[in-house]
């Protein structure tokens, strides 16, 4: 209980810090800007960590996350294609990229009555490499779009919100949060499956169907997130581990905690990236710069 209060307190603190701390005085315009940035941080950090937790539970593998499964790279590829063709990031293409890679990985790893977990990671990593090469080709072809794709690959929360994308971003966030709420209801099934697929099958869970739902919903979530803030790495991999260290293996607590911790982490990382320079430092860079030492410390303790 105390842990829960602590996590929520830290989250609120992070939000306050994200809004109040910055290189400049606070007036209503800066406030608007920071609030929208914090909202993006809560949304992206939360969704990525939530997906990581979901996938790690489903496949019982600590390495699984949107990146290692290839869906983040697939989404980045789709979004880059959008930049090349339409001159703007297209959420639909990002989603299809994410889904396409997800589907391929799923097909490779599928066997009778379940998924081969090792093959899943392998296929995901291989597909990630493929997507990266294709994105490189687009960067070479694009020339002028290079910066935009580069920032998409690293992820950043400094996205300009204007009349052309405001409504779309709100809709995408609402859809994502709805999907998160929908997936949260499966925490009990996830607990059982992470114990072992035989037990789960014995208890009457249709593993095939269940994996399919989780797998593609998370692909959708990742596609939506990438189309707004780019492919922010590290959050989805590490945060679920931190949450597990704090709250143990049960998904009822773990899923929620991952969301809140992911939000906290990303909002803080973004505040840091904003404060240290007037340059737009991609938040994806800061997440790993700060996150890796923290993670090593946590595990060595």
């Amino acid at each position, binding site marked *: 209980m105390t842990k829960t209060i602590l996590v929520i307190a830290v989250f609120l603190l992070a939000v306050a810090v994200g809004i109040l701390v910055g290189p400049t005085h606070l007036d209503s*315009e800066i406030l608007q*800007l920071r609030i929208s940035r914090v909202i993006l941080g809560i949304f992206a950090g939360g969704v990525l960590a939530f997906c990581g937790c979901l996938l790690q539970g489903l496949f019982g593998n600590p390495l699984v996350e949107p990146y290692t499964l290839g869906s983040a790279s697939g989404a980045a590829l789709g979004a880059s294609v959008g930049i090349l063709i339409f001159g703007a990031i297209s959420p639909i293409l990002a989603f299809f990229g994410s889904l396409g890679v997800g589907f391929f990985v799923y097909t490779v790893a599928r066997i009778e009555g379940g998924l081969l977990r090792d093959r899943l990671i392998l296929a995901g990593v291989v597909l990630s490499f493929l997507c990266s090469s294709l994105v490189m080709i687009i960067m070479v072809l694009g020339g002028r779009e290079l910066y935009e794709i580069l920032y998409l690959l690293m992820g950043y929360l400094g996205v300009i919100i204007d009349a052309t994308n405001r409504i779309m971003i709100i809709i995408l966030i609402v859809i994502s949060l709805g999907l998160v709420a929908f997936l949260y209801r499966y925490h009990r099934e996830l607990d059982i499956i992470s114990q072992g697929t035989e037990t789960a099958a014995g208890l009457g869970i249709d593993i095939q169907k269940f994996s399919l739902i989780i797998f593609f919903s998370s692909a959708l979530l990742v596609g939506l997130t990438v189309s707004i803030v780019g492919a922010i790495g590290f959050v989805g991999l590490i945060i679920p581990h931190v949450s597990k260290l704090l709250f143990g293996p049960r998904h009822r607590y773990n899923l929620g905690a991952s969301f809140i911790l992911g939000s906290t982490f990303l909002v803080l990382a973004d505040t840091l990236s904003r404060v240290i320079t*007037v340059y737009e430092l991609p938040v994806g860079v800061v997440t790993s710069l700060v996150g890796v030492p923290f993670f090593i410390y946590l595990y060595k303790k």
Partner: protein
Amino acid sequence: MYFSKNTLLFCGGLALVCLISCAKEQIGSGYRIVSLSPAMTEMLFSLGAGDKLVGVTTFCDFPVQAKKIRKVGDFSHPSIERIVALKPNLVIINLPEQKRIKGELEKLGINTFVSSPNSLTDIYQELSAIGRELDLERQADSLIEYMKHNLQVTTPDNRKRVFVEISPRPIVTIGAATFLNDLIERAGGVNIFRDLNKDYPVVNQEAVITRDPEIIIVLHPKGITGRTGWQKIQAIENNRIYTDLNPDHLMRPGPRLVDGFRQLKRIIND
């Protein structure tokens, strides 16, 4: 007489042919230039050396004659094979973008001329260097004179703060190490990011809002209306956003900077 009339005629003819072919050689031995820099392509045409160009990039679209010259690729990715196939004896390279090409050409023993101007002084220096190289010093001097005359410093009582947006996602602007920064200062304005000693820095929105520009020049087609948090910026409140400037007149260090400068002066001192 040791030689018959026929022999003499033959020798004479031979000599004539030799002379003609030598003369031809002389004409043909002039410069064969490949320009990988759209700005330098414009400069060469202004110097009257456009006919020496045998290859250009797909970005070299001015003057119209430049469009008819053989293309060797685009600005960022010229093809080394196509360049070599044109047998140039001078290739004009833009740094830092074409560093790789420069190394490869030098390995092949092809003469290169480097262009990478970060200020107006650089532009003038390069112009006189290419003039010397091509024996067109007089023309180069008069072009420099023309540019200097038309790019004279204006010093208003208070300098307007200018923000230039090159691309919106992420926000790319100009730092101190650009000739456009020079032009803005000469036109009587001050670039809000001149403290960044870079050419094209990526900056965050908060920095733009805090520095509160009085004039915003948008050099991309996407526009900047309705941005969250930008409403109170002076330029936006007073509707001093300029989206219709030709980027080629401001971003391309060629003779048309004069046109761009004229527009800048009009905008800033409006």
